[in-house]
């Protein structure tokens, strides 16, 4: 018998370690011959800890399982959810990037290979750098970190740059609230990220890679470090990748709690051991990146998607999606939601379908008020705009931004003035301090919103004006996009800003 219990942080946060311990104790006491596998999560967080049992007739899921459920679980008396693949939330997904996540043992190279792992790398090894870059370009893959820049074009710039040393840097500084896709894939299928980075290295001629991983993710750090060591031992990394004679090696580097280091130039400074201050562009990191050398900086999901593109072909990937948003979006449904988790699907799905249909509405059972899409720098989208299809351009047209595809749902108790104030406060706490609109503007923003809260309506045009200055004058997205949540709250929920005024009078 095989028993799968996730090691994912979200599952652990809901008691998976205790359930695993209880299952170990109980199976030992009963003399059951059970292999316990700590897999990644399937992404249905409301069912965690989700335990799967395979007695030779396929995996049957149970969840959420508590420690008290364990005897009944082993007696076969607990109600099963059936096969994970038949649960509607899962059945409606297109799993490409996350195909193996939750299925395999994350730290078992043979299991990884048995589920399609390394097929992409083997194909890439036989290709020229130019052909690898063309394949990525043809797939239509765009930066999943938020900016949506075409990955193939970035790789081409680095490939064509002349240098003694080039680097692949993976941005795993997933600081946006409502996002956890990077964490989930690093904990659940770390080899796919490693494989993606090796392919990137082959494409551009880089022999060294770094994953800049935030310190708030200790579990992901442990899994990634273990995976890198295993990859080195198995010849996936090192001086002779899979016997090709080509070299690529990588290290995991841990951040130190600065949100702004998710911005690529600030990340590079941090990686170099400096303050995580934003650099002016140009020069582009593709030409002068880590230690001044040509560097590919890609998000975890972008790099982790590369292997499946090479395994199944660029066209297969590009066949999914809408408009210029090709392939799949790895949506993270979070916040006040009945069924939250990771949902990978072709671009083009609407917010209404995600929140009300898949997500089952709010966890509190109250009406939905708004959803913040794209992290703390993303707009609050009112219910009236929930028909917007999710795509880079499509959301942009509605005054929003897709970002890292995190969706945080709020019920009608949310006070949007308070949320706007928090956006400014967060910007003030996390500003790197280099440019004035962000450093000073965010502090003035908090003060101005406090004036509005005290009933000073004259401060509203001031806030609008300040937001314009921050948008136009900031060096990076922190100061430049903080106005998105602030202005969307003000525009779509004016009552929350006026009600405070009446209360004060």
């Amino acid at each position, binding site marked *: 018998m095989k028993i799968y219990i996730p090691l994912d942080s979200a599952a652990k946060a*809901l008691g998976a370690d205790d359930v695993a311990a209880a299952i170990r104790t109980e199976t030992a006491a009963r003399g059951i011959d059970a292999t316990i596998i700590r897999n990644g999560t399937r992404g249905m967080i409301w069912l965690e800890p989700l335990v799967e049992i395979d007695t030779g007739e396929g995996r049957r899921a149970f969840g959420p399982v508590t420690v008290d459920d364990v005897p009944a679980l082993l007696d076969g008396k607990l109600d099963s959810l059936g096969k994970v693949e038949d649960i509607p939330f899962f059945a409606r997904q297109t799993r490409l990037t996350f195909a193996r996540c939750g299925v395999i043992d994350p730290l078992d190279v043979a299991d990884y290979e048995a589920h399609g792992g390394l097929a992409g790398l083997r194909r890439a090894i036989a290709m020229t750098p130019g052909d690898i870059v063309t394949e990525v370009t043809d797939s239509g893959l765009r930066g999943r970190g938020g900016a949506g820049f075409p990955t193939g074009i970035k790789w081409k710039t680095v490939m064509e740059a002349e240098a003694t040393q080039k680097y692949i840097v993976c941005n795993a500084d997933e600081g946006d609230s409502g996002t956890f896709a990077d964490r989930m894939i690093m904990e659940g299928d770390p080899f796919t990220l490693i494989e993606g980075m090796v392919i990137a290295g082959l494409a551009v001629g880089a022999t060294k890679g770094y994953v800049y991983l935030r310190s708030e993710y200790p579990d992901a750090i442990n899994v990634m470090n273990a995976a890198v060591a295993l990859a080195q031992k198995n010849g996936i990394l090192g001086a002779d990748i899979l016997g090709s004679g080509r070299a690529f090696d990588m290290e995991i580097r841990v951040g130190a709690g600065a949100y702004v280091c998710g911005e690529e130039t600030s990340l590079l400074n941090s990686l170099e051991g400096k303050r995580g201050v934003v650099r002016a562009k140009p020069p582009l990191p593709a030409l002068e990146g880590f230690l001044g050398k040509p560097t590919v900086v890609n998000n975890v999901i972008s790099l982790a998607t590369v292997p499946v593109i090479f395994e199944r072909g660029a066209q297969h990937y590009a066949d999914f999606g809408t408009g210029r948003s090709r392939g799949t979006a790895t949506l993270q449904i979070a916040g006040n939601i009945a069924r939250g988790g990771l949902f990978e699907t072709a671009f083009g799905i609407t917010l209404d379908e995600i929140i009300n249909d898949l997500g089952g509405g709010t966890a509190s059972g109250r009406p939905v008020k708004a959803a913040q899409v794209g992290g703390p720098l993303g707009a609050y989208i009112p219910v009236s705009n929930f028909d917007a299809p999710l795509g880079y351009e499509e959301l942009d047209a509605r005054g929003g931004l897709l970002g890292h595809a*995190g969706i945080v749902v709020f019920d009608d108790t949310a006070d949007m003035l308070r949320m706007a104030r928090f956006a400014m406060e967060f910007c003030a706490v996390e500003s790197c301090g280099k440019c004035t609109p962000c450093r000073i503007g965010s502090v003035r923003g908090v003060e101005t919103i406090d004036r509005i809260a005290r009933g000073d309506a004259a401060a509203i045009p001031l806030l609008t004006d300040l937001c314009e200055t921050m948008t136009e004058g900031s060096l990076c997205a922190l100061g430049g996009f903080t106005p998105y949540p602030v202005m969307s709250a003000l525009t779509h929920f004016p009552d929350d800003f006026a009600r405070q005024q009446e209360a004060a009078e």
Partner: protein
Amino acid sequence: MQHPTPPPTDLEIEALIADHRHLEGPLLPILHAIQRAFGHIPQTAVPLIAVALNITKAEVHGVMSFYHDFREVPAGRHVVKICRAEACQSMGGTALAEGVLAELGVAWHGTTPNGNVTIEPVYCLGLCACAPAAMIDGKVVGRLDATRMSKLLKEAGA
């Protein structure tokens, strides 16, 4: 974690620096190693790092003070990080955090008088689908409420 005196010796610090100085961009790994070993980064480490990396003491200080993670003084025996970000707010995280601070009579970054618990804000633990969330000494907990939080704080000796 609070660590007992005596303070770390220069020799101990220099050994940690030597372990990491061959890396490309060694400063953050060095600072993390020192903090992991001693619970904070003692002032005596600053000139040692500066000499080893051929940078100024001001530069070392500048980097240390830029990042939220690095401490100049030890924290309490247990560090409780409570998420303040939007997803946790949508599930009552703000009230939960304010309740903790009021219950313990500390402000953010404050330590209980008995030195057992330090409360820190954190902006997202990636547990946004099981909010509100917190992390106690690296162990994550989700779907918290006031009762459960109180229990965890008592276990930590707050």
